[in-house]
């Protein structure tokens, strides 16, 4: 890659980090953490983006960042109060900055109206916030400094053959204190044209009175050049306050005969400097050299100066700085620095921070695929060994155990490569909340928890959309309008809480609001109106709540800007399910709703119980199984026509015959002639699954049934078994939700929407 393109890429990555730092900092400030450290970090983030943007000529970005930075600087200086409304504006500005960064990265046009109005609002803030105003700086749009170059560019002038300048330059001690050097400045001037330099050493005190850090010399430079005064001044740019500098046209100044001679260039080399040392009234040529004066030449000048005052060579002379001092300093360094730490122990202090490499995701995916194949192969080998009738205790079996162990470890390690904290998704939500809050006119506070919870990248990428929609819904539909909240005795500000945690090998993400809860009457009425349920349907609260997952259902009487985007909760539910996840609702009238997403940590593997059902091999996800049991006929009771329950520890748990549910058999097995699995579905709903037999436990590689065949009700995915045959992975939630023994297939689903949707 072209190095600049690589740096540009780095810049945008860094921008992402700065932006999240900025947003996080601003949000902390919003809650009152306005300590210097937070404010500085926020300021630096914007400052850094501006700096980089300038380097890449991203002017829109620079302009906005500058205005933003100026406002932040006022806060930093304590001249602007970080009030709630100020912080809200700042947060919106950080969103706009993020937009500008994205536009710059993608080369698209930013929303100019938004940027302009925010910039104006920020500017207004600084003006209001400052009693005295900032005068001329107000008009600075931040681009003024962009055009500022470190060196003034010589403006071309009409050629003046006799053009010549006389420069009198008397360094002050401060010049040397900042490591500037007269010699280097002379060299700089020498680059503008032929020069003739004289040094006036008359102010040098006696050696005994010499202050090594003082300044005693005055240089007079005759410069032959077409350059204008600005070009000469530019050479002295860094020292203009630390010296007496007089620049005048040679013609305006009567030549001081005997002191100064200007000798035009006759040399092929171009620049000729004629240096004379002046000591009182005696002028003597010191040295003459071609080209730019080198350090040695300048040193010679200085030596001459020293000789003329009989100063010893081995001490710091006349405070002429580095040219003469450098060798001394260089010698003093080894002692000064050689000391305690060896170079090796120090040099990597900067590199020690998180050694990482960047790898193409395709390679990791390929690795994961291969490990999946390895797992299958290991299973096949294991099965062949079993079939060959080798004793469990044989060396082969032991080696096989070891292989299984290693395979498992490789798999875990490989999966860990892609594991990421959900932070990246969570970080997008504050902005969403601000936007939706602004659109709905509600006051919303977003609380997040468990951002560090890790989950496979494949999952992270796909939960952003469902989460976005759920949060949008929570604000738009969940939270009441401010007046209604106040009327209900709640705080004006609604709270949306986003939580992530690991629970039994899955990641659970909750979106909770403290709004009004689901209006069940309204939901039911709507469902009847849309013909989704029969007018006389008897639904419990949970079933009613679950109606909102039905396709085509929407409680919003008018299609609003926020949720009316053709995406309903049914789509959310489907996308969650396609991830092998479940979604459930818990709602309390007046107190709010909680949506819970439960997702696998990875989409690649699963720990499963291998069972046989009517001659078929099925996999039941281990995470759903609480225990296995052998039901006794006496504990099984029939309810109504064909619903069966099993009495367990004082509770009646619905019995589901898997073979019937999937349509393998018409009549259920006798419970006591089969094996049962006590499983728990989403929301803690339990059921006992009846299967023919248990074959064992196995980690299986998940192959999507939908991608390779089509979605099948009751089946989550497929896998390849050790013998090379395909086995189906049971969708426990779908099965559990069928608490009666009707089949999942065919019309069963549509005939009983409330039940099938109750996942």
């Amino acid at each position, binding site marked *: 890659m072209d*190095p*600049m393109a*690589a*740096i540009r890429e*780095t*810049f945008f*990555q*860094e921008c992402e980090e700065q932006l999240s730092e900025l947003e996080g900092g601003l949000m902390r400030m919003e809650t009152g953490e306005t300590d210097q450290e937070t404010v*500085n*970090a926020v*300021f*630096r983030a914007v*400052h*850094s983006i*501006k*700096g*980089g943007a*300038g*380097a*890449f*000529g991203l002017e829109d970005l620079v302009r906005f960042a500058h205005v933003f930075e100026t406002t932040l600087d006022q806060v930093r200086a304590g001249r602007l109060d970080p009030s709630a409304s100020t912080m809200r504006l700042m947060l919106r500005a950080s969103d706009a900055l993020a937009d500008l960064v994205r536009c710059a990265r993608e080369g698209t046009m930013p929303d100019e109206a938004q940027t302009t109005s925010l910039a104006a609002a920020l500017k207004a803030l600084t003006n209001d916030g400052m009693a005295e105003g900032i005068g001329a700086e107000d008009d600075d749009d931040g681009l*003024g*400094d*962009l055009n*500022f*170059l*470190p*060196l003034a560019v010589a403006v071309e002038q009409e050629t003046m053959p006799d053009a010549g300048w006389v420069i009198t330059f008397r360094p002050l001690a401060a010049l040397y*204190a*900042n*490591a*500037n*050097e007269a*010699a*280097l400045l002379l060299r*700089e001037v020498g680059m503008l044209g032929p020069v003739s330099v004289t040094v006036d050493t008359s102010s040098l005190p006696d050696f005994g009175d010499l202050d090594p850090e003082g300044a005693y010399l005055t240089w007079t430079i005759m410069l032959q050049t077409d350059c204008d005064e600005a070009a000469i001044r530019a*050479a002295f*740019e*860094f020292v203009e*306050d*630390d010296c007496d500098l007089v620049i005048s046209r040679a013609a305006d100044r009567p030549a001081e005969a005997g002191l100064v001679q200007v000798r035009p260039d006759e040399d092929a080399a171009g620049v000729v400097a004629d240096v004379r040392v002046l000591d009182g009234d005696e002028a003597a040529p010191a040295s003459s050299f071609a080209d730019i004066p080198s*350090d040695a030449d300048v040193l010679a000048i200085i030596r001459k100066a020293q000789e003329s005052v009989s100063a010893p060579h081995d001490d710091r002379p006349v405070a002429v*700085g*580095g*040219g003469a*001092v*450098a060798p001394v*300093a*260089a010698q*003093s*360094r080894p002692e*000064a*620095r050689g*000391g305690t*730490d060896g*170079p090796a122990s*120090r*040099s990597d*202090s*900067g590199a020690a921070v998180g050694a990482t490499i960047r790898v193409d995701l395709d390679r990791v995916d390929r690795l994961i695929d291969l490990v999946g194949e390895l797992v299958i192969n290991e299973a096949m080998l294991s099965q062949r060994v079993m079939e060959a009738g080798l004793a469990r205790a044989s060396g082969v079996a032991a080696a096989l155990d070891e292989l299984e162990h290693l395979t498992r470890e490789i798999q875990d390690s490989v999966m860990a490569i892609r594991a990421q904290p959900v932070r990246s998704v969570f970080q997008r939500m504050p902005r969403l909340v601000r936007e939706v809050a602004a659109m709905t006119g509600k006051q919303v506070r977003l609380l997040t928890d468990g951002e560090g919870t890790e989950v496979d990248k494949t999952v992270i990428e796909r939960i952003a959309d469902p989460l976005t929609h759920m949060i949008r819904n929570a604000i738009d539909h969940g939270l009441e309008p401010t007046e209604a909240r106040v009327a209900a005795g709640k705080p004006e500000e609604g709270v949306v809480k986003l939580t992530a945690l690991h629970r039994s090998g899955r990641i659970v993400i909750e979106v909770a609001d403290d709004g009004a809860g689901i209006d069940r009457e309204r939901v039911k009425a709507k469902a009847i109106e849309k013909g989704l349920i029969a007018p006389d349907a008897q639904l419990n609260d949970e079933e009613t709540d679950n109606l909102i997952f039905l396709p085509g259902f929407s409680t919003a009487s008018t299609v609003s800007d926020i949720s009316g985007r053709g995406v309903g909760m049914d789509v959310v539910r489907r996308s969650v399910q396609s991830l092998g996840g479940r979604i459930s609702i818990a709602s309390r009238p007046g107190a709010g709703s909680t949506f819970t997403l439960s997702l696998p940590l990875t989409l690649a593997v699963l720990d499963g119980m291998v069972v046989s059902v009517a001659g078929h091999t099925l996999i039941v996800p281990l995470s759903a199984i609480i225990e296995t049991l052998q039901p006794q006929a006496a504990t099984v009771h029939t309810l109504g026509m064909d619903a069966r329950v099993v009495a367990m520890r004082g509770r009646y748990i619905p019995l589901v015959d898997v073979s019937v549910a999937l349509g393998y058999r018409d009549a259920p097995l006798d419970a006591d002639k089969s094996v049962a699995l006590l499983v728990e579905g989403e929301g803690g709903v339990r059921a006992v699954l009846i299967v023919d037999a248990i074959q064992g436990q196995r980690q299986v590689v998940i192959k999507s049934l939908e991608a390779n065949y089509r979605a099948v009700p009751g089946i989550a995915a497929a896998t390849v078994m050790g013998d090379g045959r395909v086995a189906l992975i049971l969708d426990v939630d779908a099965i559990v939700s069928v608490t009666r023994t009707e089949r999942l297939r065919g019309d069963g689903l549509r005939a009983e929407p409330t039940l099938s949707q109750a996942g």
Partner: protein
Amino acid sequence: MIKTVLTVDDSRTMRDMLRLSLVEAGFRVVQAEDGVHGLEVLRDETPDVIVTDINMPRMDGFGFIEAVRRDAAWRSTPVLVLTTEVDAEKKSRAKAAGATGWIVKPFDPVKLVDVIRRVAA
């Protein structure tokens, strides 16, 4: 002789750009991420020129320059301030701390090298 430049900047982008420009111009480049880190690097390195940012975490450019100048070994080492600030007040603060000169961001690589050359013995 190859000259060494120490750059002190908290932005990775800026560090990368400085490195690219300076290495291309034939300098040896050592880098630090902030003032504190810069002082650490100075325990092992003897740069001919130091280029430092102002706004940095832990120790900012002003603090860094002051610390550098306090050490006799670095009294005559040119320190250039790399800054987006054009504010005269900031400039004089940097000078008061002991800065030799300044480079205004965004820098043009040619001008950057030119400024370094101007102050380097």
